[in-house]
């Protein structure tokens, strides 16, 4: 108990909360950019063009078929080499920015499949009815298909958000100061890992359970309007 109070002082808690904030921020930005990527790549995957379909498929398969840790390391460690080779300049990578970049691209591959499944689950009569009233492809997507898909996509989408909060811990391997990293730093400082790691676990749980709770509420609200 004494040891716990010694470690869990105001300073360390603040430090860890800052780390938790970073984790949350990485997850939110990645979810946002991943959604944009996922929507575009889902549209490509469902397009008539073989080339677009091919590009999207390769993207999805590569990023779902290799470990996220590997992807993060490639972007972080090899990014400067690529830019030197391609554009002739080297940069010092910021772990958080590179991390958001890598996680977004990875998440985009998963979200592609979420969007595609949700969009394709909409009855084709909806497309046909839209066509008979003169809506083009984009208008049909925007006003008819996506609003109905979003309802169906909500549960797996929230799940993806929770996965991202947990996966953001992988950024500790490239030195980003997120929640897990703060815990290990404190562990080293106090020669005790159990307490800071447990504190991190509690903070992760608070985040993921809160999100799950609000998602369930929202789902229930949406179900009512059916």
């Amino acid at each position, binding site marked *: 108990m004494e040891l716990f109070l010694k470690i869990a002082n105001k300073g360390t808690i603040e430090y860890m909360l800052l780390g938790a904030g970073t984790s949350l921020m990485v997850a939110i930005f990645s979810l946002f950019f991943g959604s944009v990527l996922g929507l575009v790549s889902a549209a490509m995957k469902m397009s008539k063009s073989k080339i677009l379909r091919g590009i999207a498929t390769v993207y999805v398969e590569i990023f779902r078929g290799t470990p996220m840790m590997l992807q993060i390391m490639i972007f972080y460690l090899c990014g400067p080499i690529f830019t030197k080779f391609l554009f002739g300049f080297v940069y010092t990578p910021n772990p958080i920015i590179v991390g958001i970049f890598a996680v977004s691209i990875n998440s985009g591959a998963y979200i592609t499949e979420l969007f595609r499944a949700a969009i394709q689950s909409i*009855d084709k*009569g*909806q497309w*046909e*009815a839209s*066509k*008979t*009233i*003169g*809506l*083009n*492809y984009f*208008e049909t997507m925007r*006003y*008819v298909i996506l*609003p*109905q898909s979003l*309802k169906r996509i909500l549960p797996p989408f929230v799940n993806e958000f929770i996965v991202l909060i947990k996966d953001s811990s992988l950024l500790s391997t490239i030195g980003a100061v997120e929640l897990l990293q703060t815990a290990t730093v404190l562990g080293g400082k106090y020669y005790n890992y159990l307490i800071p790691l447990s504190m991190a676990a509690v903070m992760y749980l608070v985040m993921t359970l809160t999100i799950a709770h609000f998602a369930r509420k929202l789902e229930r609200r949406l179900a009512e*309007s*059916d």
Partner: protein
Amino acid sequence: MIKAEHISKYFDKFKAIDDVSLHVKKGEVICIIGPSGSGKSTLIRCLNGLESPEEGTVTVNGTVLDYKKPNDVTKICSQIGFVFQHFNLFPHMTVLDNLTLGPVVAQKLDKAECEKRAVELLRRVGLEEKKDAYPSQLSGGQKQRVAIARALIQAPEVILFDEPTSALDPEMIGEVLEVMKELAEAGMTLLVVTHEMGFARKVASRVIFMDEGHIVEDNTPSEIFDNPKSDRLVDFLSKVIHM
């Protein structure tokens, strides 16, 4: 106003429509009858661009449909109303929004003006008080009347119906047929795929009998029902009338 010339439609190797020509003239009320799988739906879906025939041409108001330009086809065919067997209303929108979506989004018309017209049309099909309801809160017959109003707001010159009453409970069929009859009496051009032989006999000006992708007979209702010429039509009528 719609003219199909020698159209054929394949699904893989299967020929669902086989060299069919059909000319729909202004003011006509045409009923298409025939056994299941004879290509009735496929034919009327070809007339408004929902299906593209591999052979032959479809001309709408003087323009030949060019399926390589899907946006043009959609634009031209939005002048043709279409009512589906399963309504295909937009479930996430109110009845009013179901009606105004086309004019407001595709035609970029003034929203308030469209809503006024939508309410008038809903009154015409007897559903003015349902304008803020969602489709899930309506009965089948009401849904189909909303679908008819949604077709009407496009100010179409012709409306195509694909078995508009086949998905309805028997007690709701009458209310939908009544609306269609009123449209016919008001001079609207209608093309109706139907199994309602009573409607075909009373309301149609022309009845087409299809079988195996062909138009087998094309005549006045009294000739079709009282004086069928082909064995296949005789056979078909004996089946549907006994049922």
